[in-house]
């Protein structure tokens, strides 16, 4: 099997799991108009990796996922999972999939919907109740289990969608806008669940608008716009990264010393200052200098995450 460069969590080269090779998708209307949803998209995803997919509305995220699951045939190129055509892999092995649109027959009851999916997922009949109960408990759906799907709120429906994706221990999880409609408590709980799901032999794809979420969860993020891969960003901080970054510093004391260490610091009120540095190394050196002068630093927060900055640059370039 092909291998990829190591991910941030693994010192060994990761085995190749998902491969988009020069994939394109063009929609054609009956009137002959055509829209290119995805163009010349190539990307490899390794085993154990959490890959984020970010992009503005209509960038092609959902189309890419539909092609990855074999629901859509690419107009050009191929999508392979573990060396098999995507659809064949899914038919043989299944994947945990949470779609952006939670479409479950509204007449079904929440728990029987899960029992149906569990049966299709290949869980032995005697074990289905236990699996259903586990995901119901994990997603806090106990009081809604007997309700019909149409009676569930948006947030509960989202949790039911996530529950069906987690019924079985899947090697591949694909989560499209997973926190859409979730309240802050369940958004945080979802992040914990994804962290629990991280395993060396499991690959997770998360498509989201929420850059903060991807920054926290993903190892790498593919930024796409107008159906094209703009760049792939590693979400870890790179000490050699040279792009200018703004940080907000909060000082408890030593305000008068700030410009000795950060000559360009701008006061932002309430003991806060905006500073611009060209690298993490420069930031640390200046902070060390400031603290050696007796200043007490309460917090240092980047104005934008690495991902947000890269996202803005990538989308800006593609406009």
């Amino acid at each position, binding site marked *: 099997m092909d291998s990829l460069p190591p991910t941030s969590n693994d010192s060994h080269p990761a085995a190749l799991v998902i491969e988009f090779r020069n994939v394109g998708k063009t929609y054609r209307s009956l009137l002959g108009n055509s829209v290119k949803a995805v163009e010349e998209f190539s990307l490899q995803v390794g085993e154990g990796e959490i890959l984020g997919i970010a992009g503005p509305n209509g960038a092609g995220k959902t189309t890419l996922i539909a092609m990855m699951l074999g*629901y859509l045939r690419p107009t050009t190129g191929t999508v392979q999972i573990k060396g098999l055509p995507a659809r064949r892999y899914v038919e043989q092995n299944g994947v945990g*999939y949470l779609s952006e649109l939670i*479409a479950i027959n509204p007449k079904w009851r929440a728990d029987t919907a899960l029992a149906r*999916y569990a049966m*299709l997922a*290949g869980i032995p009949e005697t074990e289905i109740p236990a699996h259903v109960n586990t995901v119901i408990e994990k997603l806090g759906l106990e009081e809604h289990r007997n309700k019909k799907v149409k009676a569930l709120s948006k947030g509960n429906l989202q949790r039911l969608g996530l529950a069906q994706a987690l019924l079985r221990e899947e090697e591949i999880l694909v989560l499209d806008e997973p926190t859409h409609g979730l309240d802050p408590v369940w958004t945080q709980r979802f992040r914990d669940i994804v962290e629990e799901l991280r395993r060396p032999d499991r690959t997770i794809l998360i498509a989201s608008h929420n850059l903060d979420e991807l920054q926290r969860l993903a190892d790498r993020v593919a930024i796409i716009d107008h159906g094209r891969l703009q760049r792939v960003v590693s979400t870890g901080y790179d000490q050699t990264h040279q792009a200018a970054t703004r940080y907000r510093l909060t000082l408890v004391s030593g305000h008068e010393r700030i410009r000795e260490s950060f000559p360009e610091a701008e006061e932002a009120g309430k003991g806060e200052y905006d500073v611009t540095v060209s690298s993490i190394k420069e930031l640390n050196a200046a902070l060390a200098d400031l603290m050696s002068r007796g200043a007490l630093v309460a917090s240092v927060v980047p104005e934008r995450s690495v991902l947000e900055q890269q996202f803005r640059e990538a989308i800006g370039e593609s406009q």
Partner: protein
Amino acid sequence: MSRARLSRYSLWQFRDFAIDRGIAIVIIGFLLGYMTLEPIRRTMGAAFGLGAASPTWPLVISVASSVASLAVLIALNGMVSTDRKMGYYRFLFSKPVSPVAYYAQLFFVYMIGMLIAMLILSGVLYAVIPTFKIANFLLYAAIIYIAMGGIGFFVSVATRFDWVTLAAVWLGSRVLRDVYGPKPGWQSKAVEVLPPVHKLSTVSQSLITSGTADKSDVLWLLGYGALFFALGLLLLRRGSLAD
């Protein structure tokens, strides 16, 4: 393993049929039969129950075959297209399941469901006309399910507006055949490849009455439906579930 799992799931598919379509077929079929035949039965009295010897027998056959056709339309409506339209396919087929096997099974589960609904309705008819042969009627219902249902299945895979398209194809074939069939020239040959709707009336008459029908007519109907059913499966295999 996969086949065993899918066949266990057929119980869920049957349950869906019974709740969403089976009850509707029985109610609509009963109402149609009752409203058409009951006034005649009241007028004719005992003569109505004579079966094939009764002057109203062609009407009974016509109502019975219409109910069977309607049942096929209700059974087939949205079989594949609803899952695609509503997006239900997304979770169903992220599981290790082949859409081809899933919908092929669904087609036959619905056939069983439709035949059970026809059994109930023909049981009611039998109570009024004891000479009405339930087995003959069920055989006809099975043939029309394959003939009309095969085309309906293909249409449901190919388009979102399946029952409208199926009704248009069915009616269009009938009209085109009536218009161009008797005329000399290439048109009369061309209409031969249209769905064999015209054969249904003769097949229903003889099959429901005597339990026999022209073999070539029956084979033509079954073959035509089976061909389109197979084409529907091929389209599922080759095409996209998403739009």
